């Protein structure tokens, strides 16, 4: 079974986000970029399926700028077999990404597609669902456990108040939740080998998809700065401050 994994290059999640001074967008100049953490989990799951003998080939795909090849190489170092880069400098929205992915699915005919449940830059949480709608494939979102048994896919999902287990026919779409697995580190010999693995570059035009943005970003505001706390000297002072400054008691 061929597994297709979609990954995204995003701002490293430990980086403190800065907003551009004109508030037009997040400032990405010289900021550390990394693979979206949920996508790392997706790659890890695909590689584990291959190690278990369930998957025969793992193909990673990204839609993004040239620099995103860095994340594809990382995925190859983590164990993916080959990569497809749909190159564009446009800001890609969920629907555009889902359309491009639908084309790749059509071409590659994977038995399973794994995506992160959301990308931490825009937090949309919809690409996987849109891809399922466009391809007409069944979907198991927010997976915390994935197993293939007798040609069917069992997906355990964390829902409010417990776990839900779904059984899906293959091919299917899965989106990963945080507790699905703990991604491995890229090992040196594999990083070296990854440089030689095939990486195919495609364009939106040759896939026949339109990626131009349909949503206009108006303004980005940083969250309000939290004020530093103070230490009060006594209970009386605390009560005084709660009364007269915070005005939460009277």
């Amino acid at each position: 079974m061929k597994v297709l994994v979609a990954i995204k290059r995003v701002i490293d999640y430990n980086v403190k986000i800065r907003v551009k001074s004109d508030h037009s967008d997040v400032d990405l100049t010289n900021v550390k970029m990394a693979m979206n953490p949920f996508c790392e989990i997706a790659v890890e799951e695909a590689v584990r399926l291959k190690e278990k003998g369930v998957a025969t080939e793992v193909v990673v795909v990204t839609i993004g700028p040239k620099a995103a090849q860095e994340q594809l190489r990382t995925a190859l170092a983590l164990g993916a077999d080959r990569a497809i880069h749909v190159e564009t400098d446009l800001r890609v929205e969920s629907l555009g990404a889902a359309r491009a992915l639908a084309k790749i699915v059509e071409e590659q005919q994977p038995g399973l597609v794994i995506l992160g449940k959301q990308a931490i830059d825009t937090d949309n949480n919809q690409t996987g669902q849109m891809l399922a709608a466009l391809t007409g494939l069944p979907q198991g979102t927010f997976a915390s456990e994935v197993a293939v048994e007798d040609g069917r896919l069992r997906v355990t999902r964390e829902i409010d108040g417990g776990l839900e287990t779904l059984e899906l026919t293959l091919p299917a779409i899965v989106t990963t939740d945080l507790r699905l697995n703990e991604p491995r580190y890229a090992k040196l010999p594999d990083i070296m080998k990854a440089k030689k693995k095939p990486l195919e570059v495609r364009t939106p035009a040759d896939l026949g998809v339109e990626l131009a943005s349909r949503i206009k970003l108006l303004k980005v505001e940083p969250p309000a700065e939290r004020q530093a706390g103070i230490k009060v000297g006594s209970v009386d002072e605390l009560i005084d401050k709660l009364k007269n400054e915070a005005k939460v008691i009277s």
Partner: protein
Amino acid sequence: MEAEALVTSLRNQLVDLLGQDTVVTEPHDHEPYCRDWHGDMTSAAVAVLRPRDTGEVAAAVRACRTLDLDIVAQGGNTGLVLGALPDRPERQVVLSLERMRHIRSIDEADFSAIVEAGCVLEELKLGLEERGLFFPLTLGAQGSCRIGGNVSTNAGGVNVLRYGMTRELVLGLEVVLADGSVWDGLSTLRKDNRGIDLKQLFIGAEGTLGIITAVAIKLSPLPERIETALLGVGDLHTAIALYRHARRACCDLVSAFEFMPPSAFTLAREAQPDLPLPIAIDYPAYVLIEISSSGLIDAKQLMEGLLEQAMEESLVLDGVIATSQAQARQLWAIREGMNEGQALRGPHLRTDVSVPLSRLAAFVAEIGAELDDALPQCLAVAYGHVGDGNVHLNVLPPAGATLAERHTLIEQAKKMINFRLDHYHGSFSAEHGIGRLKRDEFEHWISPVHRRLLEALKRAIDPEYRLNPGCQLPPITAR
């Protein structure tokens, strides 16, 4: 009883002179100021003074003079040699700089800042990072230690190989002297040869010559790209060969190069049981390497190129490269967890030695074999800032050992290490200073001329021996 009454009366007089707010009188509240970081040693003091600015520090010093009290300055109390621990409770006060934590100025054009001595290192670093500035001093205790303490111990840490010890990061100082006068040496000039460079006297003086109240620090541009890798290597010898190679291959952009034995994983996991193991744990030794760059230089390419070649030449057996900051932090957590893991194993010998880098591997192999031979029941671990020729060679007694047995084993191991160290022209204190813990070794090592110079300095600057007596040199009762 009489002594107790005297101490109470001194406390009251301090309050009269300095005000209730500055003086911590309750012995119960002295506790965090009167024990060492490991919790192995506790002490007591007449009082803890917490001045809020330089004027209040000067007033506190004058008050102590009036009452004939000695002063132990204290920053974050993370020092590892008992330098900030009072040893004469009936006549010493702890003067904590913890309330002096203002950043007086930051100059982005000069790449400098003037900060008060009580600034917590990590808070300072984070604040500067938001402005694209980097204060390179980086060490395990940075969440608690304070810049005045860092200067007073000339702290090192993991970035020394690229940026130097604290001494190299200090442009100027403001110091309250033993007579209560203030020396304003807060220049931010990079070049200033107006006579003898006085600030150097106070850097690494461990509070024996003056009380540092503010520091002008040298900043660097914040590196934009940091690559971190954990490598399995054959032994310390190849680790050092790798370091030599890395400096040349990466245009001297290696910012950390730490060495660890395989026991690092066990020790770190004793402190943090769910720490992930990113690499097989049966290589003979490990290196944690960091390369950082800005501008057009691609640290990732440098790292991968370096390691590819190093693997071909068998300098590296295996390794992982962090792909995100989260992974990089996990790799550092192993190195940092080692300290906590050892602390959990009870009292043990901690050393902080350096020898010339070219002879470090031979030294560690030789003393390692000697220790294994003489003290087979103990676990000897060598790890640390190997790029600087600095290792912590620690000896951990077996689990069941009593305190007395531990003490004997520790003394025995210490003697063996110091003996071997002499042969290698090494230092028994690479980073941590002398404090009260290493006084005997210091006394044994210094020449008569060296001693005379130090005593002359002390007499000239603190003639009443009021500042941290008992630290570095034995207390001399001059009055």
